[in-house]
C-alpha cells in the first residue's frame, strides 16, 4: 500500500518509551498563544488542541526532530530536551 494515512505511517516507526516526557508543554502559556505552529508542524501530529484553549503534547511517538522547538513563539512554553539515551525513536529503515 503506497497511499497511507498518518496513523498507518506512525505504525511503521519504533519507539522505546521512557516513563517521563522529554518535552513538556506549559498549558497556560499555550492558552495565550494564537499561532500554535506546533500543531501543524509536528510530523508525528503529537500536539492536540484542547477545548479549554490549551495544548496537550503526547511525547511517546516523538521523532525528536526539533520542529516544535523552533516554531514555538511563546517564551518558555516548551521545555525541549532529547529523551534519555537509549529511549525515544529508533529508525531501522530496511
Amino acid at each position, binding site marked *: 500500500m503506497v497511499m497511507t494515512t498518518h496513523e498507518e505511517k506512525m505504525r511503521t516507526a519504533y519507539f522505546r518509551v521512557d516513563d517521563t516526557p522529554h518535552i513538556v508543554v506549559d498549558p497556560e502559556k499555550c492558552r495565550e498563544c494564537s499561532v500554535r505552529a506546533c500543531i501543524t508542524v509536528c510530523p508525528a501530529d503529537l500536539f492536540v488542541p484542547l477545548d479549554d484553549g490549551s495544548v496537550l503534547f503526547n511525547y511517546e511517538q516523538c521523532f525528536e526532530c526539533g520542529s516544535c522547538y523552533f516554531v514555538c513563539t511563546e517564551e518558555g512554553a516548551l521545555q525541549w530536551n532529547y529523551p534519555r539515551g537509549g529511549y525515544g525513536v529508533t529508525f*531501522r529503515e530496511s
Partner: protein
Amino acid sequence: MRIAVCLSRLPDPKTVEVDPITGEIDASRTLYVLNPADAAALEIALELRAPGDRVTALTVGSEAADSVLRDALAVGADDVLRVWEEDRATTRPLVTSLLLATALRTEGLPDLVVCGARTLAGGSGKVPALIAENLGWPAVTDVLELSLHAARVHFQRRLGRGGRSEGEVTLPAVLAVQADAARLRYATLPGIMRAERAAIPVRHLPDLGLSPLDLNFPSPTFRTPMPPYARPREVFIPDSHLPPHERAAQITSAGIAKRSGKVVEGAPEELADAIVAFLAEQGFLDRSA
C-alpha cells in the same frame, strides 16, 4: 549471599514483521530487548544485595546475547556468564533451564535465583519452574513483591482477577517475578563504560559436563484432542419449597447467584489430591490416567 538472575534477549514483538506474501519474518527490521520481566528480576536482585553479597547474571544464547549481560553489568551486576552450544539456533524451555541449572551448579550454587516470570508476548513461563525442578528447589511464580528475612523470602504473588496471595519460602529457592514488579535502574556513566569494555565469560557444553545428547529432549508431540463440546448447563428452576414471594425474587434475579470458589486447606499431599479430584470432576482429566 549469592543471587543469580537469569536474563534473556528477545525480539521486541512490535518489531517482528511478517511479509504478507512470503510469510517470512523480516529479520532486518527486528530489534531486540532485555525481556522486561527479567529486567524487573535484575532490579529486585540488585535491591536485595547487601554489602558483601554478589549478583550474578546469566543468559543462554549466542554472542548477540552478550548485550543483556552488558546491560546487567552496566547497572551493577558483579559477575555475568553466558551459556551456549555453538551452532544452535534457539533453545526450548527444557534446554534453557537445563543449561542454566547446570551452569549454576558448576559455578557454585547461589542462595537465590530470580527470573522473569515469562517472556514477552506469550511466553510460557516454564523456565523458572524447570530450573527449580532441576535443582530440587521450591519455585514461586508470578511474584510482585518480595522481601528477605534471614533465610526466608516473604513474597506476594499476583493471582487472576486482581487477586493477591502472600507466602514465605525458605532459601534456596527460585522466584519468578512479573514485569511490573520493579523498574530497572538507569546505568551510571562509569557503569555503562565498564560494561562496554568487559569481557563476557562463556561456558560451552563441555565446561558444564554436558554432551549434546543431554539436550536431545523428545520434541513435543501434539495430538488432536476431541473437539471442544458445550458443557451442559443447568437451567434455573426456582425452588418449589420456598414461599411464593421468595420464588418470585429468585425468578426476577434470573437465578444469578454469586460464583464461588472453593478453598481447600491441609497438607500438600491432600491439596494435590483435592486438585486432581476437582479437575477430574470437571472433566479436565481422564480419571483412569
